[in-house]
């Protein structure tokens, strides 16, 4: 069994750390790390609204739909 999920492709060299994606994410998936670059902290919570991708001024983030193995997904949701 597989479950649909989303992968966040983040181009760290392009990110300038403005924080727009973190602010507008409805599910708090993204966070800024100590380098002031965005990281996907809780990708299992992502609902695929693409708001981060659409509003990123630096083309630094791309959200892609993909299939996760179910076992992995369960682990992540339990933690959450």
């Amino acid at each position: 069994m597989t479950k649909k999920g989303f992968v966040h492709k983040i181009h760290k060299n392009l990110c300038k750390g403005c924080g727009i994606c973190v602010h507008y994410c409805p599910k708090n998936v993204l966070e800024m790390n100590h380098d002031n670059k965005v990281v996907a902290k809780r990708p299992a919570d992502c609902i695929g609204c693409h708001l981060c991708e659409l509003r990123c001024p630096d083309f630094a983030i791309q959200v892609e739909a993909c299939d996760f193995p179910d076992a992995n997904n369960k682990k992540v949701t339990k933690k959450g």
Partner: protein
Amino acid sequence: MYNENIFDYMRTEKLPHIWCPGCGHGIITASIVRAISNLKLDKNNIAFVSGIGCSGRTPGYLDFNTLHTTHGRSLTFSTGIKMAKPKLKVINVLGDGDALAIGGNHFIHACRRNIDITAIIYNNSIYGMTGGQFSPTTPDGFIASTTPYGNCDPSFDVVKLASAAGASFVARGDAFHVLQLDKILQKAIDHKGFSVVDVLTTCPTQLGRRNKMKKPWENLDYIANQTVSIKKYETMSENEKQGKFPIGIFIEEKRDEYVETYTKRVINKAKGRK
């Protein structure tokens, strides 16, 4: 719709771009690329022209036939390109100062001719690159480096200006409502005739910093609060309309296109054809 690779249309070796963190120009550039990609246009059939200013940097990052021209005169270069090679799709990006102040004259005359060019105005209400002087679209009461007591000049309404000057496609979008902007840009690029899209965007560095909007998202939230759809705008009272910007497509009509008219009425006659 979202996942087509926008980097296929970009000169990735030039990235990251020079715009400040949180600048809305990047959002609009990505939107233009998505619109072009949705229309499935060939890269080699697009001429991308810009003037001077922050918006003028755009062609440097895009992998089309690009041209970076003089301040305010980019529409004249575009007109030349379109007349010489009518098969090219000409897209012209302008800043608000570029289109309305320095190039105001060229702008209204390009509208009048209805030549097949798409003019996209990156309207951030300030001269960002030169140090935050107020521009013809700075809202009332806003502080800029040259208006320390607040701006008291009435501002231009780009939509009204372009419609009065005779553009056959006039729309307004903004950097907050990105999906709507994608659709508007797609229609504007596809339209035959002069199309003007006024895109409201942000300048956190020069405008936001001086007007209690230090964070980039506070600037975007300001735009979100100031914009309403055309339908809702029509039902609002005069008091409520103060400072609000209707967004959507205002004019979309078919009219004689300039290159065709010119070919028919001047070039063919000069060459002795009927």
